[in-house]
């Protein structure tokens, strides 16, 4: 795809652009940029906290109250622990989906618009 790119090592490429990069942009100081990145960070940390709470909630249940998870659902042998465990797996996929959707619909367009405005 970009096979004619020089084999020069990435850091030189990056360093070539970084000095006074931020000052040149003005973007970093733009309140809209600060607002959107702050919002994204808060969203990311909230979802992280949710995933940590779900998983360690489950692990603590396994550690301290295995008897709760062992209870059968209704009259069968299937225990409550099974939907709980599968639920942890599904919640991981769902939270990932929520983040991707929000990033596609909100964060990316907002940041792209700012980039265009600043001529990047």
């Amino acid at each position, binding site marked *: *795809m*970009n*096979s004619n*790119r*020089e*084999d*020069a*090592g*990435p*850091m030189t*490429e*990056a360093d070539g652009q*970084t000095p006074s*990069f*931020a000052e040149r*942009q003005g*973007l*970093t100081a733009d309140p809209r*940029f600060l607002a959107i990145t702050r919002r*994204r960070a808060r969203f990311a*940390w909230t*979802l*992280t906290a949710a*995933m*940590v709470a*779900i*998983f360690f909630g*489950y*692990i*603590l249940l*396994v*550690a*301290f109250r*295995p*008897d709760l*998870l062992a209870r*059968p659902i209704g009259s*069968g*042998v*299937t*225990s409550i*622990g*099974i939907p709980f*465990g*599968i639920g*942890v*797996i*599904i919640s*991981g*996929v769902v*939270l*990932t*989906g929520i*983040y*991707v959707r929000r*990033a*596609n619909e909100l964060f*990316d367009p907002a*940041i792209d618009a700012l980039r265009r405005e600043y001529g*990047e």
Partner: protein
Amino acid sequence: MKSPAARATALLLALAVMPSTAHADALTSQTEQQAANWPAIVLFALFVVATLVITRRAAQRVRNASDFYTAGGGITGFQNGLAIAGDYMSAASFLGISAQIFADGYDGLIYSTGFLVGWPILLFLMAERLRNLGSYTFADVASYRFAQPPVRLFAAFSTLAVVLFYLIAQMVGAGQLIKLLFGLPYEAAVVIVGALMVSYVLFGGMLATTWVQIIKAVLLLGCASFMAFAVLWNFGFSPEALFGRAVDVKTGLAAASGSAADEARSSGLSIMAPGGFIKDPISAISFGMALMFGTAGLPHILMRFFTVPNAREARKSVLWATGWIGYFYILTFIIGFGAITLVATEPSFLTGSGELRGGSNMAAIHLASAIGGDILLGIVSAVAFATILAVVAGLTLSGASAVSHDIYASVLKKGTSAPGRELKVSRATVPVLAAIAIGLGIAFEKQNVAFMVSLAFALAASGNFPVLLMSIRWKGCTTRGAVAGGVVGVTLALVLTILSPPIWVTTLGHAAPLFDFSSPTLFSMPLAFLTIWLVSITDRSARAEIDRAGFADQNLRAETGIGSAHASAH
């Protein structure tokens, strides 16, 4: 959905049952090393030929370091998602977790949840920034605004440690599997895996590795789907019926070994609830932390994010990967219970003392034989072997790039190596790593695979993860803080592991362990974070000023992708 699919399965099953009687005879021989399994050998040979053709085609496109390390950054999010799944769903997951469920039931599901929940964390905190800041290795990101030599050296050694433990686990698994399935000696099996992995990585670089991983992921998901479907089909698609039968089987086994009726019943029902997984609450939390945060520190996984063109595709690849991996673990759960109902009751799969033939990891393999006879046994065996190849290829590439890109080009040559030299060093490293992996794989033949994998996760969670997270998220982090914290985390994780029962008691022969928990992560990871913080805030060096001042530029690029590598290529 019911009629055509069900009829097709019924037909396949009917066809498959025929050779299975012949197979049962083959298994009655008492030798540990099995007679050659021809369908498996033919199918595996097909896989090898196909992947070598891909490697040859890829080799013609590998012209520079970017092609070699990251397939030129031209992989799509969907492809990368599959490749990540292929890189992550190791034989330890497929064989190990289904075996765990076969033995203890519910506990296997706890492992599965731990292996999955690292992915959302990796996405929320790192994936996009990783793509925006790095080029080839995660050390590019960790050392972005820091003094290069110390941070890169830490990252490279930590990468090599994680990669080696993970590689040994895969090599041992491969050797045992091939010994059972193909009738080859253990050492020969390990050498074959090493040789194939060298040819993929050496000639085809990341492009070939990616395609090997994608093909493997599709094959493994297809195989596991079919097996889970067949198991559920046997029970009229009622999980309750499947679990009920599994409980009856376990109850019967307990009764047969002399338990009283109600005792046997409670032993049978124990597969529906958490059991031996939890040695104590501290171990459970510590091990959970290793799995959850270790995923975000595995170098061969982090490297995959540099193969996509931008942060958007990086994000997409995590969503695909998480979906496939989650689906796979649910299948594994069904397969494990299927094995209880179909394998544990069948004397031809068991040794005289009631153990599984070929070792406890073979539950899924025997289930394949029970469902689909020699044909499915051959397919599943070949896929399990392919699984190992795809994982070792990714690991080797990651280890080689740590040596060539981080140690050689960035530390020894200070970023001034001649074009092409770095690539030569990388290629020269591949056979060396393979030789080490083969040697250690043979030396550690008896080592517990799950233990090695959990150690790799603990090291990644205690070193790479804190350093990476603090360097990209915390302005105050300095070179000294990052290196000190990383070294403390990795060292403590290693020392506590040496003091724990598997090494201190079993290997070194001491009477009692000095550290009696299943994972060091609960102690080593927080201490790594604490050290990074403490050393950084007390760092008054001139370098610390530069480090803190560099955050604004780093953050702009991390947030927007402005100036990121490959950004001009699309």
